[in-house]
């Protein structure tokens, strides 16, 4: 998951079979450092700058208070106290992203295994179906989910016919945020797990059954350890981007389940506090980095244990 920035060593013989020229990586690396590196540097620098007294932007004056402000609240009655509001938002980000990861995993593993056990021609079609949502913009799909979950929408009508229309409210609750997140990230969990499962030789599972293992034993002791790399890749692809979710809490959560990206957006928008928004972004980057390290550490441990 981490970006490997080390260039190939001088001994590289690009003519040797299976080796490529180091210049192949030059263009993508330049592109990435331009589109990822430079904005990150700008955000980092902004987080240490002061604000103008009117209007937007930053002024070139050192101001270190933004990081303090994340943890210390200057209350309206003039007192200062430990600020739990932003920590709560960070906790929300972890909680919703974590729940999304678990949710997508529970849904994705059976689907991936099922696809992997179809005959090869059908598999292609099924994988294609998994990627179908990408054909439409995420914004439009989120609006569609809103129609679905609305108390006066499809789900609401079903609930009314079933007789529990009173207090039927899923849309604009945390539940609706999670439904939206799981829906959005599901393909990112299915695809890597499927890629692992496809390579798994299901005769091992058969052998397990032949030796008298029960279904659960086969699943947990034979199948899951073999597809674990796919699961770990899936976790990385869901949990990490999930931390920075903006659309689902905003559009489906009724604005009440703020995640960190929503707070950053408000600081860049109405609050006109770019440095504070930048400080929060830097914090989000650090958290993401930490999560990435943890996931790759878990992956390495697994590899070592295997060896």
């Amino acid at each position, binding site marked *: 998951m981490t970006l490997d920035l080390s260039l190939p060593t001088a001994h590289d013989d690009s003519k040797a079979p299976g080796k490529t020229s180091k210049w192949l990586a030059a263009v993508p690396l330049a592109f990435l450092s331009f589109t990822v590196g430079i904005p990150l540097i700008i955000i980092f620098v902004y987080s240490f700058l002061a*604000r*103008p*007294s*009117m*209007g937007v932007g930053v002024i070139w004056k050192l101001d270190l208070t933004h990081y303090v402000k994340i943890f210390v*609240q*200057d209350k*309206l*009655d*003039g007192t200062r106290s430990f600020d739990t*509001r932003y920590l*709560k*938002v960070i906790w929300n980000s972890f909680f919703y992203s974590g729940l999304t990861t678990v949710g997508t995993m529970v849904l994705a593993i059976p689907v991936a295994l099922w696809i992997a056990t179809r005959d090869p021609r059908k598999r292609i079609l099924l994988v294609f179906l998994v990627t179908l949502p990408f054909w439409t913009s995420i914004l439009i799909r989120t609006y569609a989910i809103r129609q679905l979950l*609305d*108390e*006066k929408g499809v789900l609401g009508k079903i609930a009314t016919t079933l007789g529990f229309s009173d207090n039927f*409210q899923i849309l*604009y609750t945390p539940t609706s945020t999670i439904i939206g997140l799981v829906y959005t990230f599901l393909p990112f969990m299915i695809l890597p797990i499927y890629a692992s499962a496809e390579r798994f030789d299901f005769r091992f599972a058969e052998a397990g059954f032949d030796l008298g293992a029960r279904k659960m034993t086969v699943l947990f002791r034979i199948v899951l350890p073999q597809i674990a790399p796919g699961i770990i890749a899936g976790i990385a692809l869901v949990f990490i981007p999930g931390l920075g979710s903006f659309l689902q809490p*905003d*559009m489906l959560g*009724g*604005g*009440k389940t*703020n995640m960190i990206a929503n*707070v950053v957006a*408000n*600081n860049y928008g*109405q*609050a*006109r*506090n770019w440095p504070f928004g930048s400080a929060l972004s830097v914090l989000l980057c650090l958290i993401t980095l930490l999560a990435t390290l943890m996931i790759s550490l878990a992956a390495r441990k697994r590899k070592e244990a295997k060896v």
Partner: protein
Amino acid sequence: MKFFTPKIGVAIALAAAVSLGLSACGSSAKTDTAASSSEFPTANGGEVNLYNWTNYIDPEQLKAFTAETGIKVNLDTFDSNETLLAKLQAGATGYDVIVPSDYMVAQMVSLGLLENVGVASFPNGKNIDPNFMDVYWDKGRQYSAPYMYGTTGIAVNTSNAAANKIASWKDFFAADSATSVDVLKDQTEVVSAALRATGVAAADLCTVDKSKYAAAQKLLEGFKPKVIDSDGGIERMVKESSMVRMAWNGSVHRMGVDNPKIKYVFPSEGLNFWADNLAIAKGAPNLDNAKIFINWMLSPKQGAVATNFTGYANAVLGSGDLLDPAIKADPAINASPENAKLATPTPNCPTEARDLYTEVFTSWTSSQ
């Protein structure tokens, strides 16, 4: 005295009379020209370059202007105030009339990007609604004329008894959750409304008195809306998922079209408006034509034509009677004078006050 034959005498007298008369005519013509150049130019063909928001003026209206004045209009469009600012700051020349929003006028005046043409003294300057004369971005209307404006008030469904009683921000924030209230996810709108509800005057909405914000925060503590969202929420009101909503007047007009039970309430403590303005870019190549265009747009008839096309309200006195019946009949857009008086510009606070808004808003959203 050969010279003074009666014939010649008559001729001289005639010539004198004619030349006197001519010079009288000439001098009067001269003073006329002088007066109009210090007062207002007259149309003399040529062109004017209009830089406007996309789809924000009736093309037919521009044709009518050309037909009446002989001045050709070249239209170019932008999509945000920041785009407009960037264009002018980059030294774009060739724009005459531009259409910046409220806060952007203030910024452009301070950057010296607008011509001070004394809009209020234009012949049609008298048609500007007095409520829109002394706005913070252009006190006394020197640089800009009002174009379209919109207010942020309350949409209520009159079929709901509790909703129907709401007449103020105080009522709005006190509405119990059973009434299903929606609110805009907009820090400026929410906090300024709470400040108004706790007795802060419109002119004082950028106060830095923390006790005022503490009172607003206290009011908001009990306010648990069903939805806090950043889009218009038209559908939710039309489908009656919600009965009350903080809403823009333009969207309430659209709600009313689909659900006639919905009406727009001007809160008694007052409400915010945003406004777009016609202004002239510094160094405009067709300064006189730009003045003529703005003056022409300030006539009641053209104000009405603009509103009929955009669906937003204008600030031109006397245009109300000339509106399309559907818009004319909607008090959300064709506000009564009493209601129009309640609207004051959306506060554009300096950093110190804005931080207090952020503080109140952050505390409120994180307690939801």
